[in-house]
């Protein structure tokens, strides 16, 4: 860790200290958020529309005395992050759909080995190579269920440049706090959007680090936990020896099939996150209090919705917006409250209804939920949303 503690001297740090307005791209703000949260390892393989993150980290990591590795592919990229994280680093990789698909196997490995790391997926049109330079929101369910086996997932989704920074800091803090991989799910529009932002100074941010063992190496039982359900993680190479595996393991980290050990393992894997749902499920409200029709949206589409709310109200349509910043765990309580007492709910998104199906699931007869899908490689415009109002108003 000696190298990692060297004084930050990069361009990013210099600009950040001043706390002045800057024109930043979403990908740049996400990179700055990672650095502010203490990211000190990056491995990746450039891909549109996430390349700017890899590019930015390739400049900033060496300046700070930290490793940047361009790997041979995305499988190796997340593999390097898992290894680095177990060795005590705060690791991140960044990719888009094709690379995110390749990462799914090791994402599951990180999940079961309880390895904190952040995976950025900037969504573009898919499947396969799809529409490399166009916007889409087609990986929402993949981010939840892409890796096999039942597992919890934490996915944050920004809709502005400043949210790229804030949610990235939160992604790292969440990964470290819960010892779990966290997915930062942006889209091409937000990642490439440039906006004027004033970032908080690095000293003003809350930065959470994983809990490390306080016992001597001989007493360390790697997966034994106190009431928190989150085991303490020792840095590999510091004298604490333990076994890391993708198999379901006992407290000592060795494979087990005993039902009396398997059941508590899964209960802990889910429980460590589900008991903190309240801290994880982030939403924002726009003009929701007196809204007759509620829009529920996320990412770049939430921006279309904000404009639709403004324009709709100018024309006498009482619209409101619930913006989801956390997609998984799905912010059920906020969505339930937003649906209650409305004439209708419209869920605009750049896929065939990946979040609208979740909204319908929690709706439970409260109101009429209508999906608004668009699959042409461009953003939904505010007028397109207002065009649906004839059906619902």
């Amino acid at each position, binding site marked *: 860790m000696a190298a990692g503690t060297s004084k930050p001297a990069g361009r990013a740090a210099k600009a950040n200290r001043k706390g002045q307005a800057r024109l930043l791209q979403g990908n740049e703000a996400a990179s700055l958020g990672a650095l502010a949260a203490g990211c000190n390892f990056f491995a990746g393989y450039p891909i549109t529309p996430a390349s700017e993150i890899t590019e930015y980290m390739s400049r900033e990591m060496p300046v700070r005395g930290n490793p940047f590795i361009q790997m041979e592919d995305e499988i190796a990229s997340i593999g390097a992050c898992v290894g680095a994280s177990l060795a005590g680093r705060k690791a991140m990789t960044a990719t888009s759909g094709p690379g995110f698909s390749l990462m799914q196997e090791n994402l599951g490995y990180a999940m079961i080995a309880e390895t904190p790391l952040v995976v950025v997926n900037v969504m573009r049109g898919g499947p396969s190579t799809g529409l490399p*330079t166009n916007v889409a929101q087609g990986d929402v369910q993949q981010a939840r269920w892409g890796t096999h086996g039942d597992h919890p997932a934490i996915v944050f989704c920004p809709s502005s440049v400043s949210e790229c920074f804030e949610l990235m800091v939160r992604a790292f803090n969440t990964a470290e706090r819960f010892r779990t991989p966290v997915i930062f799910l942006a889209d091409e529009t937000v990642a*490439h959007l*440039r906006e004027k932002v004033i970032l908080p100074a690095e000293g003003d941010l809350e930065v959470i680090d994983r809990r490390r063992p306080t016992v001597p190496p001989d007493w360390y039982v790697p997966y034994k936990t106190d009431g928190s359900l989150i085991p303490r993680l020792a840095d590999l190479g510091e004298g604490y020896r333990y076994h890391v595996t993708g198999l379901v393991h006992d407290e000592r980290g060795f494979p087990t099939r005993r039902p009396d050990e398997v059941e508590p393992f899964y209960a802990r894997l889910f429980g460590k996150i589900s008991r903190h749902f309240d801290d994880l499920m982030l939403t924002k409200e726009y003009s929701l209090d007196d809204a007759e029709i509620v829009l529920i949206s996320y990412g770049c589409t939430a*921006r279309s919705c904000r404009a639709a709310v403004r324009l709709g109200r100018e024309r006498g349509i009482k619209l409101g917006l619930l913006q989801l910043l956390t997609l998984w765990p799905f912010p059920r309580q906020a969505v339930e409250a937003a649906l209650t007492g409305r004439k209708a709910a419209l869920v605009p998104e750049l896929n065939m209804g990946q979040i609208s199906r979740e909204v319908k699931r929690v709706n439970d007869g409260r109101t009429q939920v209508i999906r608004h899908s668009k699959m042409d490689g461009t953003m939904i415009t*505010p007028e397109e949303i207002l065009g649906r109002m004839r059906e619902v108003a």
Partner: protein
Amino acid sequence: MASSKKKETPKAKAPEMERMEVRLAGSGGQGLILAGLVLAEAAGLHDGRAVAMGQSYGPEARGGASKAEVIIADQDIDYPLATRVDMFLALTQEAADTYSWDLKPGGWIVVDSDLVSHPPSSRAVALPFTATARDKLGKPMVANVVALGAITELTGVVSRKALEKALLARVPKGTEALNKKALAAGTKMAKDYAASGQLAGQEPTSEDV
């Protein structure tokens, strides 16, 4: 939003602006993303407005259509892309054809007179950006800066002072003099065009928008 009125207001003091959408389009390598960045930084960091800039390009490694959109406003910008373009700059025929379908009626259309043989409208202002950069400044690569100077002079979308500050902060060291010359050439080109009377009946009026 009457752009023509802004031209008359003193440049030092930024006039009220509801929402101004600028689209810069051409081919990859013409420096339109950089031009967008300079415009966005001029408006956002030096004129003190809210600003959002989107970019779009094709999957080609080089060449291909390239587009930057800069939204400038005094209030918070919700929808960050262009919906009705107030100012459209096209530096290739393909860009002029592809990106002119959602312009604001009466909005500005400015094209490179050598590279765009068929402007999307008879109202289009055709100016020799690339020819001037190549023949008078000796560097065809500064055509984007010449164009920036011209469209700023025509529309007053950012103050001249802010534009120059933003430009000089962005360009590589050692090219400041060249870029200032390019900017001045663009400004002069637009002034001459306006003085020639060709703008009569072409400037957007409040009735148009």
